[in-house]
């Protein structure tokens, strides 16, 4: 049994944990929820030996322990599966699983690795976690879901009895999530204690036996899933009652399409994607991981070379070669990868807001006062909590960083905006504000495309949803009776011929592929 008592941890600016006591029992799946900044990650990092607590004790099987390093925690059977996986891409699956614990050959006082034994053991561990992966394959050739299974196998190889999983389904498709859940249940049945951290409350309610809610570094309550609803759980996290998460839908005005995408294809997985969006309309792009949603958006915006198809902006053929070209035509794309592509963590609020559109503030020397005014304006309009305009935004919460990423593009005054996973990894309050913002933008006449893996989000926001499957449009849904999670799932998983449902809306007829010299004529400088 793993227990923490009165754990406290402070960072220069904040008190991350303020006297948290919890127990994680054998064979129990214990959910840990809370808004960003509630202290979940800090607590887990303390358990995993990454941070030392300022006060409080950790007890493993009723014996107090101090973890000064990850290996000390590992020696007590604690393993953590991080949100960003920690595998070495250029090594094989077996080498990763036994990294640092390679079985040795007796020769040369054990300086040689017994590769064959290692691979055999790896194979049996992989079968244990239900992954039929060849242990000699390189990790970089695996899908994210497979890599996660390798991580779990690695943890089991070290005889982990306590498995901490941080947002394990964030990168998984629905089907992969389901198989992960059955693995978690099996591990729990074998006596492994699992600490499950997630923002996705339905998942937490489905998989966990007990759920602990953290808020502002304190434990609010530990509950059983059958005693709480999703809404109640959310309220416990936020500490106030939540009213409508999604703003009311307004009908989209009738107008000519702002963006028309026709039969585009791009490497590696966009084969034939067509959709259109009108000013004031919000459309969703749904699909499983790997269905080509992000890649299609990147092909439109000029980040990927389009090999076929046409893109029209307000009925003008365009061929963007970079986001720069796209912004010049008032098309903006907010990336799903906030920290890697969305914002500059080391730049401040002002610099982040004006970065994409700096020329508007002066051809050579941007006016600092005008930049500051613009940033203040967005901070106010989007309710961004940015205490110090001149501090790097690294310290802001995910939600506020996301708002800044959106503000950066809004500052370029786009008429079409593509938002890729706009609420990934941000807390509920911030999500609700983001939804409000998107609806407001549409109301102001922007054509909005929202890419998301969270189906309730798409259903709550969008007028129409285009479902992609394996790089093609699997169907388009519109109207309250069609916009259901079930319909979207059926389309995206490819079981749309089920007799219970009418056939999917036919995809718009694709025009013959344009001749290659047509696209070459429009090559930008």
């Amino acid at each position, binding site marked *: 049994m793993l227990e923490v008592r009165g754990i406290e941890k402070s960072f220069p600016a904040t008190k991350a944990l303020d006297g948290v006591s919890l127990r994680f029992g054998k064979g129990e799946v214990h959910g840990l929820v809370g808004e960003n900044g509630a202290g979940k990650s800090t607590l887990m990092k303390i358990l995993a030996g990454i941070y030392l607590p300022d006060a409080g004790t950790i007890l493993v099987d009723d014996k107090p322990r101090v973890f000064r390093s990850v290996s000390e925690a590992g020696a007590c059977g604690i393993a953590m599966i991080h949100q960003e996986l920690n595998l070495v891409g250029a090594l094989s699956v077996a080498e990763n699983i036994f990294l640092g614990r390679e079985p040795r050959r007796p020769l040369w006082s054990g300086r040689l690795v017994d590769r064959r034994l290692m691979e055999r053991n790896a194979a049996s561990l992989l079968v244990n976690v239900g992954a039929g992966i060849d242990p000699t394959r390189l990790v970089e050739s695996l899908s994210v879901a497979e890599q996660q299974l390798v991580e779990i196998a690695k943890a089991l190889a070290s005889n982990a009895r306590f498995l901490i999983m941080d947002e394990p389904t964030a990168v998984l498709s629905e089907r992969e999530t389901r198989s992960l859940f059955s693995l978690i249940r099996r591990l729990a049945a074998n006596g492994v204690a699992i600490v499950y951290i997630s923002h996705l409350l339905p998942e937490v309610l489905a998989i966990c036996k007990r759920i602990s809610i953290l808020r502002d570094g304190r434990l609010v309550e530990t509950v059983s899933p059958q005693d709480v609803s999703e809404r109640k759980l959310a309220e416990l996290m936020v500490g106030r009652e939540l009213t409508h998460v999604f703003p009311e839908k307004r009908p989209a005005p009738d107008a000519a399409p702002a963006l028309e995408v026709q039969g585009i294809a791009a490497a590696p997985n966009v084969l034939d994607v067509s959709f259109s969006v009108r000013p004031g309309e919000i459309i969703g792009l749904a699909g499983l991981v790997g269905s080509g949603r992000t890649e299609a958006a990147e092909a439109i915006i000029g980040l990927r070379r389009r090999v076929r198809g046409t893109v029209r902006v307000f009925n003008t053929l365009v061929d963007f070669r*970079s*986001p720069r070209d796209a912004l010049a035509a008032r098309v903006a794309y907010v990336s799903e990868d906030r920290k890697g592509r*969305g914002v500059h963590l080391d730049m401040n609020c002002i*610099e982040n807001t004006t*970065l*994409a559109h700096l020329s508007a503030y002066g*051809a*050579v*020397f941007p006016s600092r006062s005008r930049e500051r005014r613009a940033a203040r304006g967005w901070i106010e309009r989007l309710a961004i909590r940015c205490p110090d305009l001149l501090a790097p935004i690294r310290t802001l919460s995910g939600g506020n960083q996301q708002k800044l990423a959106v503000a950066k593009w809004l500052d370029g005054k786009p008429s079409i905006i593509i938002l890729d996973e706009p609420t990934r990894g941000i807390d509920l309050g911030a999500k609700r504000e983001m939804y409000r913002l998107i609806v407001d933008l549409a109301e102001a006449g922007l054509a909005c495309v929202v890419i998301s893996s969270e189906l309730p989000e798409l259903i709550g926001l969008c007028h129409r949803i285009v479902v992609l499957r394996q790089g093609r449009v699997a169907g388009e849904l519109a109207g309250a009776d069609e916009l259901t999670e079930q319909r979207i799932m059926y389309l995206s998983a490819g079981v749309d011929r089920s007799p219970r449902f009418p056939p999917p809306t036919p995809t718009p007829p694709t025009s013959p592929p344009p001749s290659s010299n047509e696209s070459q004529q429009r090559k930008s400088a």
Partner: protein
Amino acid sequence: MMVAAETLAVSHAHRVATFLERHGVLVAFAALFLWNAVVADTAEIFRNPENLRNIINQNATTGIVAIGMTLVIVAGGIDLSVGSIMALAGAVALLTVNYLLTAGEDGVVAWSEAFAVMAGVGTGLATGLACGLMNGFLVTVGRLPAFIATLGGLSAYRSITLALADGGEIRSASASVLSAMGRGSVTLVPASVLGPEARPITVTWNILLFIAIAIIGHILLTRSRFGRHVIAVGGNETAARYSAIAVNRVRLATFVIVGLCSAIAGLMATARMNSVSSSQLGSFMELDAIAAVVIGGTSMAGGRGRVWGTVLGVMILAIINNMLVFAEVSPYWHGSVKGVIIILAVLIQRGRRA
């Protein structure tokens, strides 16, 4: 109360660490300068304006190259070819001057010396521009790592210089104009103002050029749109590309700038000597320039840097060199001292983010 006191202590230590991280180079420079000018036995010699002016004058070339290097490094690159560019630019300039001053068949020199030198300066700068463009294209269009591309330049530009000079020295045919530029100075305050027996306060062209380029570099990096783009590209190239920044154009421009800075430095050195030693001019300049940039607090990973820090970095290295000379330490040992200084500087400034 206990908690409050502890928090206070933590934030105090935090503030000191932050201060050192940000302004360590300033503290180091001030300490070094004061010690040399006040405490040391040789203080009187050190603080003699003549000596100070010499120190700056001798290091103006390194300073100018290091300022260009700061921009490249902030943009996430590096340029190892600066020393070779200096030599090549100097050689091309001298060959131009000599060609134009060679008497024709009729025994008449068509060009006046001043015009020939101007033309030489022009071709020298053009050489720096061309080398910078070459490096920049290899890095952006050719997608080579900057280290590799400019390592090639380091070798190739030097070899071209050696070939042009046949491995030796190119002497200038300009009798007076070029060397006058190299050694010339401007009177800031005439002697008559300072009273009888006073000497006028003068400043060499080299120092003026160094100061001017430092000011331009500082404004470029901190105030201009280009500077912001340089920081954005160096901080996170992918995010910069996604933020509608012409990443390649920005990186190319930084290489062109450092190429031009190197050419200017090369011309200054050439003018001072009135000749070019094809193997010696600018050799190991890349190391001195990078050292100054690093000491000045610019991050080698890109995205963070400052020109004023680099200027102080150059001066710190210069003062230490001066100290070692005063102390009659064998020049063979100078390199080790420099090495220790560089590593100490990085250790202090690395701060808490490591």
